[in-house]
């Protein structure tokens, strides 16, 4: 058993403990305000919230799964033309943060709000996850089974339901559970569209009550629901059949339905990507004459400085844990990795609230400062960093490390002189991905930002509260262009290299 350098162990354990602490404090806070919390949860309003949240989660997951799988099937298994174009278009909504999506629709249709609006926006925002998982799974499943089924007389629909679907079900289900978690924790879009879910109620309770035990109670409900979903997800994890052989692509001839399928996919792309971008561009143009460029530049500077600082901090801890997990796998490293993932899954608003409590009561010298916010970003995005860094680090051959150590270098020196330089491009890409993810973040920043710090996201939020669409649009457009699109590009590249690693 190779032992990791002490520095890695220390950084890893510190990260795991630190990310759990604010949540422990949330529970403590709840314990002391117990009666208020029970009173809050016993109100009929809680049932209304549960119904709303439940309905939204169920419908969005269903429609995102159907849409994502359908798109993936058409793109990988049918003979539609321009399949690559449609593949890119299907993943493109990932470049638009969900609250920007909500804003862009509302700017076009001011009455766009409520359940239907939330369902539509979140389906658009989450179906790319299912699409990417399904198309990756479909690409790895041997189509020979489907060929056999067809030759035995099954119709196209039966082939899909009896042969294709069962083989990709595990990874699609995993993606669907991701959609569930995402919808549960979604705040920006549902708040803009004025639909009352638990997250919106949490935010309102936070800013409209003096005794924040009510807010803590709602936060607890969200934590319980999230843990439930995580537990379900862990039962489904793994178990997909993977073929390492080169897979021939067999495309089903759709015949006359081909054009119909292409039209359908185009309509989806127009609604999901075309309309929002059009809205942003038109409104940004309208707002260009009255735009306060100083304010925009200040928000840009605020966004980037926060993101870069957070990126560096997250990179240090992320590298430590990724190195530990990929090269010195042990029971402790697995525990650390698990715990970091659990806190990551919690809604950002819950993490923010826990840190507000923690900051103002336990560590007042840290409260309202840059570092508490960066700490919050660490809790939320450390797993993203670990995932992004694991692949490039895993690709560095272990034999090189052995050679280096046999030549007399210590483990730590080997990391700095051999592993990191070789993994540098992947590490830099991982760093960039984390920076871009922090750039797009909204709810945590709203709760924890230091006085006088503004980001593109918070400025957009403030403008939408006043229905000032022209003022909001430049921020929205910048978020898509500077953060959304580069992040999507990096994400797709990372997925490709992950597949290369998995296939040997």
């Amino acid at each position: 058993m190779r032992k990791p350098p002490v520095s890695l162990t220390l950084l890893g354990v510190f990260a795991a403990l630190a990310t759990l602490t604010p949540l422990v404090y949330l529970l403590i806070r709840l314990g002391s305000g117990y009666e208020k919390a029970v009173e809050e949860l016993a109100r009929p309003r809680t049932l209304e919230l549960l119904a709303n949240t439940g309905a939204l989660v169920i419908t969005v997951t269903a429609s995102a799964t159907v849409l994502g799988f359908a798109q993936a099937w058409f793109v990988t298994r049918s003979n539609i033309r321009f399949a690559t174009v449609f593949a890119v278009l299907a993943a493109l909504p990932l470049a638009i943060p969900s609250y920007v999506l909500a804003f862009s629709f509302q700017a076009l249709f001011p009455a766009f709000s409520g359940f239907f609006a939330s369902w539509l926006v979140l389906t658009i925002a989450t179906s790319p996850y299912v699409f990417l998982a399904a198309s990756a799974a479909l690409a790895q499943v041997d189509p020979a089974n489907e060929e056999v089924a067809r030759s035995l007389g099954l119709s196209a629909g039966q082939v899909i339901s009896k042969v294709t679907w069962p083989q990709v079900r595990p990874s699609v289900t995993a993606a669907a559970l991701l959609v569930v978690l995402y919808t549960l924790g979604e705040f920006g879009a549902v708040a803009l569209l004025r639909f009352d879910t638990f997250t919106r109620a949490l935010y309102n309770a936070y800013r409209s009550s003096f005794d924040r035990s009510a807010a803590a109670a709602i936060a607890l409900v969200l934590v319980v629901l999230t843990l439930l979903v995580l537990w379900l997800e862990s039962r489904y994890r793994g178990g997909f059949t993977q073929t390492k052989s080169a897979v021939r692509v067999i495309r089903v001839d759709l015949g006359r339905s081909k054009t119909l399928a292409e039209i359908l996919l185009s309509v989806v792309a127009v609604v999901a990507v075309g309309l929002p971008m059009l809205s942003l561009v038109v409104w940004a143009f309208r707002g260009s004459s009255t735009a306060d460029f100083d304010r925009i530049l200040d928000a840009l500077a605020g966004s980037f400085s926060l993101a870069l600082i957070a990126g560096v901090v997250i990179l240090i801890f992320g590298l430590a844990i990724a190195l530990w997990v990929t090269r010195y796998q042990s029971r402790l490293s697995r525990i650390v990795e698990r715990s970091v993932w659990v806190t990551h899954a919690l809604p950002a608003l819950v993490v923010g609230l826990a840190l507000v409590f923690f900051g103002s009561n336990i560590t007042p010298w840290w409260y309202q400062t840059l570092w508490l916010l960066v700490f919050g970003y660490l809790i939320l995005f450390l797993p993203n960093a670990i995932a992004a860094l694991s692949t490039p680090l895993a690709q560095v051959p272990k034999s090189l490390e052995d050679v280096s150590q046999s030549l007399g270098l210590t483990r730590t020196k080997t990391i700095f002189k051999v592993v990191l330089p070789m993994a540098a491009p992947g590490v830099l890409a991982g760093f960039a991905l984390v920076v871009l993810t922090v750039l797009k973040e909204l709810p945590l920043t709203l709760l924890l930002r230091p006085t006088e710090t503004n980001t593109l996201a918070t400025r957009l939020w403030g403008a939408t509260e006043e229905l000032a669409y022209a003022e909001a649009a430049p921020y929205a457009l910048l978020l898509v262009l500077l953060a959304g699109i580069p992040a999507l590009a990096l994400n797709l590249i990372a997925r490709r290299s992950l597949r290369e690693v998995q296939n040997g």
Partner: protein
Amino acid sequence: MSRSLSSFALATVFALSLSGCAATTPESNTGSETVDEAQSLVLYSGRAEDLVQPIIDQFTAETGIEVEVRYAGTAELAAQILEEGESSPADAYLAQDAGALGAIANAGLFQQIPADLFDLVNPSFSGADNLWVGLSGRVRVLNYNPEKVTELPKSVLELAEPKWQGRIAIAPANASFQSFVTAMRITEGEEVTRTWLEGIKRNGVVFEKNSAILEAVETGQVDAGLINHYYWFARGAEVGAENMTSKLAAFEPRDVGNLINVAGLGILKDTGATRALVEFLLSETAQRYFVEQTFEYPVITGLEAVEGLSPMGDLPAPDIDLSDLDTLEQTLELIRAAGLI
């Protein structure tokens, strides 16, 4: 070798945590202040940045005192100050709701405002015991679209009736609405208020801010809304009053829907800087700003409101002492119990 690197890692970790201390400005917890703190102050403002920052900038230009302003909702900031307690970084708190100021005063977190400054303002616009002072007056009005609303409601209580379903816009997260609900609790009692809130929950279209309501009524998205008067006048000055689609109306005399309220200021630390801020905001320069730039009512004598606004004394307002509006917490609970936020 590895020992030095692990100590480097340890050092990094500790440095990161300790630098959090350095990043904050040290705040003293006592009431009175030392000289070197006098050149800057931290203001929590429940009023919007667009309305407040210009006059704050003017304050800095005139006195050289730097002001760090934290903008957020009035109730949220009140809750924050209460949570922070004595170690709050805030030196002063500007609120849109007398109730929020009353809550902080009741918690014993405000310092008394010097009598010579406090007495500049009519006592009916300020809190008890010199703990907070009014800065500008505003009146609640009904903003309506004359094409859609042909019969004006006599009392704000009528808005909970079924015929107003989906036609009335409100901003329950906004401090001015919360003030108005507190006033209703005082004049009409808890039960009537509770019933009214439940009716408004059925009828109302919820927005975040008064400015959003005005926009919605102007564009025909909703028939009417409850806002503060100055939003309409500010828009009228921008586009021309004759070009406005919507109009303003008052309810019958002494109806609680005509509430006169103030935006007010309280100081949490008694320093040269905070006294200078109070003095400036009650000076003719600042009061003239509130009259001419934001279209509110002045609180000092000697200044007239803008043309088009009825003099404050002529307004059909209910008879309420603003310092009685200090039970914001209960109001918030009623509003939340009705499911409005």
